[in-house]
């Protein structure tokens, strides 16, 4: 057992957990943040994506103890109160989900993709979005609307980033 102290969605949390606890288990079972989904056993589906210290990583492929002190954002932490994040709004507008199982991972991936491309100053083309979604599997939508949602949110998010400057 080890004590793990993290900042999750802006709040400090501290729990005593077995060393073999995955971050996905820690979030879902210890913190009851069940928005982070687990869709595979092989680190391939991306349903469990969360942001750790600014990078999107697979919560199912990381030990919670190894992240002691880290800053974690999950799908529960992206909206501002009742105001959805632009990425969530865009998934809604473009019908970027059907059953919704992959959606938390898709939204976390989408935010990460847009943020990285903006930081690099590179245009986010449709081809780039498809390539960047390599690690996120969806079994329902056929991806087209997910790609449209991310492209649309990129516009809103770049407007917001410019307005903030």
């Amino acid at each position: 057992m080890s004590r793990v102290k993290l900042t999750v969605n802006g709040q400090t949390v501290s729990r005593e957990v077995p060393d073999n606890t995955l971050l996905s288990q820690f979030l879902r079972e210890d913190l009851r943040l069940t928005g982070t989904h687990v869709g595979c056993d092989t680190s391939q589906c991306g349903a469990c994506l969360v942001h750790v210290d600014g990078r999107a990583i697979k919560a199912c492929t990381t030990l919670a103890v190894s992240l002691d002190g880290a800053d974690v954002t999950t799908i529960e932490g992206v909206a501002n109160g009742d105001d959805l994040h632009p990425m969530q709004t865009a998934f809604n507008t473009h019908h970027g989900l059907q059953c919704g199982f992959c959606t938390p991972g898709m939204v976390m991936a989408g935010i990460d993709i847009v943020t990285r491309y903006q930081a690099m100053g590179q245009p986010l083309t449709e081809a780039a979005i498809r390539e960047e979604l390599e690690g996120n599997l969806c079994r329902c939508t056929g991806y087209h609307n997910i790609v449209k949602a991310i492209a649309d949110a990129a516009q809103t998010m770049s407007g917001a980033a410019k307005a903030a400057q």
Partner: protein
Amino acid sequence: MYELKYHKATSVADAVAILGDAEDGKVIAGGQTLVPTMKQHLAAPSDLIDIRALAELQGVCIKGDALVVGAATRHADVALHTDVRTHIPALARLAAGIGDPAVRAMGTIGGSLANNDPSACYPAAALALNATIITDRREVDADAFFAGMFATDLDEDEIITSVRFPIPEKAAYAKFPNPASRYAMVGVFVAVLDGDVRVAVTGAGEDGVFCHKGLEAALAARFTSAAVDGVDVSEEELMSDLHGSAAYRAQLIKVMAKRAVIAAG
């Protein structure tokens, strides 16, 4: 996953000492291979020694006429580093093509080389570029480092600290990714170093990554994609599995070699 004891190493020397004391210890870097393997009960170390955050294992620099990459440098950081993109763009592109963005955000070069998966990308770069693997106790040439599928020349408690890549005149990596796993079905890394041509093949060999002597000789004589046509790539000692037969992989080696030669220019 079985029970284990986690340790955060404070230095490479500390990690080696903890490894020595542990019953069945293993170092963990990005965890992108080790964690899935442990989840499937294919590995069950008693102790995990985390070296991912050690400052002495991070970063990229130019030393003399070589590019040195710290063992715990992540794929995403190799892909974006200016020195890598300027001096060995083929290596930056290889790193940018590993798995998916979340794998690249965690996985490290040291973990990839130590694991020596027969379908991994970095082993092909290390072999073709004639890299030197630097560990906590010695330096090993890539030619002597890879020792068959999932096997290397590393001692049980030996830790890779960095990798030194000579800067080639030309180089390129062409990979045919497995559509499900993104690992190489076949990947070919071609490099011209001091006038010598080296061609490393991953994803295909029954013993893991290897240099193809026939392709090297043909390309040394004439560095064009047409030179590949005349080379006999035998299917002997190539892998056959549900993804493709040895004959299919032999054909892919030629196609990837041509693409790499064209990309190297």
